[in-house]
């Protein structure tokens, strides 16, 4: 119980740090970006409330001290008021994000789960068959793939399968001109079609890490006495591999997997950019080029919260799977 509280405390702390960074960064940067924003706002016309929000978020035209700005800022954030998007004025940031989040969740979610399952499986088998042909090609191949920049894989796929072979579309989430989003089969098919290449890019670049870390922990686990004991008992090979070795090998990796989600997210940003895929990452980069700072901040917070959430899930899973953590904590 105490462990759970400590972990939660850590998450709250990290969230607070992220919020504070969001607060401090625009104020610390030379040439207050907020001023550029104000100019933009004057173009768009602005309601007094929005002006007030901007004041809170960025300290524009603010008469208040830094500390009271900070207080107001936190209050806004914690009540879910992330401000108003500058480019999509007057839509609030939360709504803008809402339109993009499902695209990213689908893409990243599916690709990551697949990469995890395939990667862990391949890592387990590769370690189990130490010294075989499989094991001699797996490590070097995936060592190399895990160092390849995400966007490059995306670009190669776009070039080869999208533009040259025309097997898959190379842009967007769906055919904007011909389709309307809705729960119909054509739309669904269209979405899958468009998501295929981005998902494969993500899969190719992330699977390497899963494979290699699982293989490494598996190799260490296979040297343990209880694996030798399982052999001594005459248990069938597959049972030893899964029940004795893999179940133990995966435990230290779960949290590590969750933490690397930060990297998966980064990769998703770049892949969405290359594919013009209408997800959260693409939106972030558009916000950057459009100097839509409220939206940018909101997205950063969202991503941080998502990663924290994943780590929490991994922690819970580890506790469920490992009787020793349950006892100790």
């Amino acid at each position, binding site marked *: 119980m105490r462990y759970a509280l400590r972990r939660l405390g850590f998450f709250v702390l990290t969230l607070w740090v992220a919020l504070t960074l969001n607060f401090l960064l625009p104020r610390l940067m030379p040439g207050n970006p907020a001023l550029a924003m104000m100019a933009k706002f004057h173009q768009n016309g602005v309601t007094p409330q929005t002006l007030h929000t901007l004041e809170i978020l960025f300290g524009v035209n603010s008469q208040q001290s830094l500390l009271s700005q900070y207080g107001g800022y936190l209050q806004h954030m914690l009540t879910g008021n992330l401000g108003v998007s500058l480019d999509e004025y007057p839509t609030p940031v939360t709504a803008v994000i809402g339109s993009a989040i499902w695209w990213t969740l689908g893409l990243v979610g599916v690709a990551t789960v697949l990469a995890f399952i395939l990667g862990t499986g391949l890592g387990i088998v590769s370690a189990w068959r130490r010294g075989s042909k499989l094991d001699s090609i797996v490590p070097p191949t995936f060592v190399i793939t895990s160092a390849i920049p995400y966007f490059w894989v995306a670009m190669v796929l776009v070039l080869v399968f999208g533009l040259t072979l025309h097997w898959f579309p190379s842009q967007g989430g769906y055919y904007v001109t011909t389709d309307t989003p809705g729960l119909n089969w054509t739309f669904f098919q269209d979405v899958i079609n468009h998501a295929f290449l981005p998902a494969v890019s993500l899969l190719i670049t992330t699977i390497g890490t899963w494979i290699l870390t699982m293989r490494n922990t598996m190799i260490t686990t296979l040297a343990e*006495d209880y694996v*030798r*004991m*399982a*052999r001594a008992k*005459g*248990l069938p090979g597959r049972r030893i591999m899964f029940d004795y070795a893999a*179940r133990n090998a995966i435990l230290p990796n779960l949290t590590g997997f969750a933490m690397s989600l930060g990297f998966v997210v980064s990769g998703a940003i770049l892949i969405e950019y290359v594919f013009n895929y209408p997800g959260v990452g693409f939106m972030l980069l558009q916000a950057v080029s459009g100097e839509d700072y409220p939206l940018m901040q909101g997205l950063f917070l969202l991503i941080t919260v998502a990663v924290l959430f994943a780590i929490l899930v991994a922690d819970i899973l580890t506790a469920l799977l490992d009787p020793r953590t349950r006892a100790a904590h």
Partner: protein
Amino acid sequence: MTDTPVLEVSGLCVDYVLDRGDVRAVDDVSFTLNRGEFLGVVGESGCGKSTLLFAVAQLLSPPARVAEGSVKFQGTEMVGLTDEQLSAIRWRDMSVVMQSAMNALNPVKSIGAQFKDAMKAHGKPTREEIAGRSAEVLRMVGIDPVHLGSYPHQLSGGMRQRAMIAMAMLFTPDLVIMDEPTSALDVVAQRSLMVQIKELQVNYGFAVIFVTHDMSLISHFSDRLMVMYAGQVDELGATRAVFDRPLHPYTQGLLEAFPSIRGPKVPLKGIPGNPPDLARLPAGCRFHPRCPHAVDTCSQVAPELAAIDDALVRCLRRQDGSLPVEAGHAGHEGSLSR
């Protein structure tokens, strides 16, 4: 009642295949084990006794491998068989008890689940049969069957070791191989566990190979004693005989290192020096650099194992008679309760 010995090991050699060349950890070991016999294997750390044990049980993992020799279990040759071929005899006829139950038991499975694993791997027992037998073996070692649902980390050290022994008894095998099962325990727990093991052995009649570095502990329970040094067998004989009249200078040294409670006060003598690096063995007899009785030939000729009275010993000077056999040390435990 068959007369085939339970185990016949001849010329067993185990190599560690390393980058810098193969290192022989077990060199030409041969012995026979009969039904119900208790063989103690003693030696310093690194002498190859554990490796020998795993080689006999066919549980070596790379880079270790059986280079030469044969291991016949109840007449069947085991060297070269695959894990699948071995699974028929594993646990049913031959089981293993390891040094640390904390390491040898799967930390994420309950004790009961690990018993069940073993039983289901050999036959198709029903749920009641599994539950019944699991409870039965636990009671054999004095553990309340309620602990079947416990995880290894929830049991005390002594209980874990007993649970491991109980697991080894699931099929009342003909041979139980034990690798220092008492080393991780305190002195009191050690003794009580040994007594338990001996009791089981006497009641169920299985043979035991017991590896340990604690010679005085094993001497109370074993029928025969095998002393290993630097991968070779240096002495092999009836426990009583080895204890009362140790033939090999190494054995003598080991015995002199253990004080006797009842005898007169004798200054403790260790054996000076260290065991040799198996990759760089001394010429001639492997023990000669540390032997108080070494002469020139000892550094030139490597002795073979030869019989003297009823024991086997690997020592040039004993074999040619230049080192007369004297009476054993006064004060070593005389008759022991059996």
